[in-house]
């Protein structure tokens, strides 16, 4: 959506999302670090599923950035022509 919206810095949007996802990944990792391998096995599987999803999102964001960086710079959109005054016929 950022790519299709005029005047948006796509790299900044991607970075903001990457930072947010990393924060979430940090929280999930902290929860994982505090879990017991045996007693919390089911909880760990759920956490790891969420970790893999967050990691996949970061990879996708990296991929988006690589793809966006090879696109040509957007051309300045010409300003709309001023409405011409009706000429008397």
């Amino acid at each position: 959506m950022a790519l299709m919206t005029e005047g948006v810095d796509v790299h900044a949007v991607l970075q903001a999302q990457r930072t947010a996802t990393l924060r979430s990944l940090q929280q999930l990792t902290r929860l994982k670090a505090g879990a017991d391998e045996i007693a919390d096995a089911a909880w760990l599987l759920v956490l790891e599923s969420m970790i893999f999803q967050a990691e996949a999102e970061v990879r996708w964001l990296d991929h988006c950035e690589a793809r966006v960086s090879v696109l040509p710079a957007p051309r300045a959109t010409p300003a709309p022509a001023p409405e011409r005054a009706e000429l008397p016929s």
Partner: protein
Amino acid sequence: MSVLELRDVIRVHGDGETAVHALRGVSLTVDPGELVAVMGPSGSGKSTLLNLAGGLDEPTSGSVLVEGTDLNGLSRTQLAAVRRRSVGYVFQDFNLIPALTAAENVALPRELDGVRMREVRRESAAALEEVGLSELADRFPDELSGGQRQRVAIARALVGPRRLVLADEPTGALDSRTGEWVLRLLRTRCDAGAAGVLVTHEARHAAWADRVVFLRDGAMVDETGRATPVEALLQ
């Protein structure tokens, strides 16, 4: 006092039209007990930052302080002494000396520092115990698995009074489970009071850090801030 401080560090390779701006005014502090991950695409300046932090390279301008000592202006001998006493490195390919046992590899920086042999042996044994490798102290690197070698490298990085560990893609040569083991160990060592800087391109590994900073084209573009304590997450 911060264990590592980078103040407005600029590093330019070459000059004139061919000059490459590897770092553009980067500032970073790492406190005792803190693990900071550095992420960014290839060529973003991650390894340059690590080399400057460890005194392996000099900034074009700005300052690098390790445990309060400004590395600028130190003689080669003084710089080598700071590196031996304060800084430990963990590399992707372990960089252990094949002709030395695990215990001897860990002991080497302290021996070079002129510490007495009895003290060196005690410190080496303690460092190997901290990484859970006491029983393998007499093995040579080629008799150890990749994960065990990296644990030896971490023990060597933090032997004796060293408090700063700089890790450059330490899990790059390891499978995912062993890599996680290494990250858990780095985390534990930092929780015990060391300071760490971890360069990685793996988000899953960076997430073990207290803070993640992002480099792009030599500049720090963002950071996650300190991670929420786990107690707050479970409320």
